[in-house]
Each structure stands twice: as C-alpha cells, then as structure tokens.
C-alpha cells in the first residue's frame, strides 16, 4: 500500500505528559500541605494539583478504553464426539477437518455404532 499511514506516537506523548503531571501534582500538593503558606497560596497549589491529577486520571481512562476495545482473545473450540448406539460421549479439541456429522469410525466402547461429531462449539472468552 502506497497511501500514507496514520501518524503514530501520540499515546507515548500522552503517557509522558501524564507522568510529568503526576509528579507536578505530588509536588504541588506537598507544598500546599507543608503549612507555610497563607490560605490563598494553599488554594492555588491545591488547584494546580487537582488539575494535574485530573489530567492523569483522564489519560488513564483513555488508555484503559483503548486496551479494552483492542484486545482480541483467541477462543478454544471443542468437538463433541458421540456414538450412535451406546452412551459414549467425548469432548475433544477441534482438529482441522472436523465438521458436524463427520463420521470418525467405529465406537471403541461398543464396537457396533459409528462415532460421529455431534457438535462443535466454543465456550468463549471469560466475561469481563
């Protein structure tokens, strides 16, 4: 593809900014709490700390959303093998070439009925 690709690196800048803001927030809250300031000064430093932490919080939630929508989890697929005559039932991992109602040969338990795949399913990824 010769078309321009979207620019990358924005999330790194945000992460660095968030880290800087966290340091600024901690530093200013430290100054505000040390007790040497008058009330106006304390309010000013608290405001800066609140703004810095708000930025960190928002960046964090944005990053979390990005991770949530992007994570693809491969699923485990299983095949149910059943005998047409006896009660034999086996659940095995799906193998390439398996399909529903595929005959797999004689039943090893009763030696009479044919084994066939009765169903193929996935339990799916665990609910978040």
């Amino acid at each position: 593809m010769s078309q321009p690709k979207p620019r990358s690196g924005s999330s790194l800048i945000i992460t660095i900014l968030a880290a800087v803001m966290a340091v600024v927030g901690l530093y200013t809250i430290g100054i505000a709490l040390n007790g040497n300031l008058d009330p106006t000064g304390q309010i000013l430093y608290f405001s800066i700390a609140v703004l810095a932490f708000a930025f960190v919080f928002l960046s964090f939630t944005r990053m979390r959303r990005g991770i949530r929508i992007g994570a693809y989890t491969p699923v485990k697929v299983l095949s149910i093998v059943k005998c047409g005559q006896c009660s034999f039932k086996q659940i095995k991992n799906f193998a390439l070439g398996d399909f529903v109602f595929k005959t797999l040969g004689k039943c090893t338990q009763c030696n009479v009925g044919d084994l066939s795949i009765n169903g193929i399913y996935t339990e799916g990824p665990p609910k978040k």
Partner: protein
Amino acid sequence: MLPVSLHENDLLGSLFGNLGTISQLLFTVLFIALFFGFGQKLQMRQFLWDIDKGLRKLDMFRNSAKDLTLKTVKEIGKPSTDPGPQINVLMEQFLISPVDMDPAGIVGKIDHLLDVRDEKFKEDVRRIAPGADSSQVMNLENLVEASWALNTIYRIIRHFYLMGKKTNSIFIIIQLQALLPLIIQEAEAYLGAAKAFAEGQPIGDGIGPLVASRLMKDKEKRKVEKDVVVAETMMEDRRVIALKAEGPGGNVGKPGDAIKTIIEENVGKVTMVVMVDAAVKFEGENSGEVSEGIGAAIGGIGTERYKIEQEATLHKIPVYAVIVKESLQEAITPMKKEIMDAGEKVIERIKSLILERSKPGDTIIVAGIGNTIGIGQ
C-alpha cells in the same frame, strides 16, 4: 485574587508574586484563549489521537487477516506461484449496484450481479488454490471475503480520518470518533470470523443449517438449486421437507430458489414454511434465546427474501420464523455453546408450531438459513 503576599521561598510566589494583577490578567486571558479560542481545536486533536489509535488497530487486524489468508491458501491450496498479488487484487474487488431510478425488475438484476460475483470469486479462489477441494474452496472464499471486509473497513475509516484532518472538519472527526468503538468491535469479529473460516469451524450464523441437518440426519438427501440440499422426514405425522445449504464448506446457498422449486414440485400440498435463522439480539438480551414470529427470516441483500415472499403469496402459504438471538459478533465467530444448545429448543418450537398450525398429513418446509461452514448433512 492572585497571591501577592506569598511567602518569600514559595515557588509560585517568587514567579508571580511581584507581578500582581498583571499575572492575574495574563492567567485570565490564557484561560479564555485556551478554553474558548482553542477548546474545540484541543478537543479535535484529542479525537484525532483516538481515531489514529483505532486506525492502527484496524490496520493490525487487516494485516493479521491477510497474513492468515496467505498462510491458509499456501497450506491448503498448494499454489505453484506466490498467491500474494492475486489476493491483493481480490481485496480491492467491488460490486456496482444496478441503477434504481426505475426500480421495476431490480431484484432480478441484483440477483444476477450477485451470481456473477459469487462465481467469479469462487473461480478466482479456485485458481489461486488449485490443491483445495470444493469444500475448502468455499472456506477459502469466506476467508478472503472476511479479509476483504477488514481491508474495506480500514480504507473507509482512513479516508474519513485523512479527510477530517485535511478539511479540519470537527463534524467528520466527531462522528468518526463516536462510531469507532463499534467499528473496531465489528472488525474484531471479522478477524475472529477469518480464523473460523480458515479452520472450517461452525459460526453462530450456522444455527439454522445445524437445526436442518439434525432433522435430515440419516435421511436420503438430494441437491436442489444452487448449493442447497433437501431431505424428507416425518414429524408429528406431518411430512417435513428440510433444506439447508450444502456443507461443510462455508456456504449460504440460494434458499429462495430452493423453496420456490419445492413448492412448485408439491403444488397445493405445502401448507406452511418454517424458517430457522440467527437474528441479531438487542443489548441486554441473552444469546441463544429462541423467539418465533411471522415472515421470511433471512438476511442478506433481500433477493432471497423477495423470492420466498413472492412464492408464499402466490400460493397463499403462511411463512413462520423461528429465530435464535445472538450478537453480530457471535454470528460470525465460532458458535458458542448456548447457541448450539438452542438447536434442541428450536426443534421443540417447530414441533409445537406444526401441531398448532397444520393437520396430520400436511407437507411442511423447514428451511435452515445461514452459513453452513463446519456443518455437514
């Protein structure tokens, strides 16, 4: 008021303490400039970052699907030359829908176009994968289609992203940013579908064919119309003609044509048609729930539904629908257990529908609609 009386060793005080009201004025101007003047710009930049991140994800998805397609074609198809360039050509394929200024006869035109497209696609896949059997060709065709869908999604989103950037239009950017989580979810489902198609695993949409195949198990089957198999069975003293797309290759067949043929073969005998299909659930509903209704339960562009509705109206045959609820993602990814288990409930529902709505000796068509990948008969 700004802190004019700040302590000597205070950082901000030493910076702004002497400036007094000038710094206060500067802060106010800066605040107004940032939040009123550049607020929208800042927000747009933030949205662009989001879209940029999403776009990179979409690019990753389409590359994964393309790699998987190449790998599967090489493994199954055993091509003598590199299939990459031919797959790239397939990825950019398109369909021009017919003119609808004069809509009379448009269904036939669309049907014809879809037939040509299907045939061409199948032929192209067969050519790039000469070692694949007919069932594998169907699966590969589905796999290429999933990759095509991911490629198309990426191209469209990139188009609007670059256009939004170029024109600086916040309205394009906002819409794109709002829709992106849904689009990414859909793309993720297509990636899951590609993996299922590569391995020939049944997908959620296959619940209709699964029910039909359970009805036609151990019965004599015959092929009618394009890729549709039919078998007769007895249920509650009624003659049931079950039909589904021919499996286990990924295929939906042409159930509209098949139902038309069966009705014409049994003129005056068919008393009802029951269609079984997967249907998109609303958020909050449980997957695998079974519901019934009236009408032709079949998705797609509408040509098959049109044929069934036409034939049913012509012969005054009632059409009933039994659906299994699932999300769009579940419909195209490997079949979940709760959806597979719904198959038995569907058969019970068909039995009660038949008992309520027909008499012993009647002929009933049960059509299992959907993609039959991984489901034999």
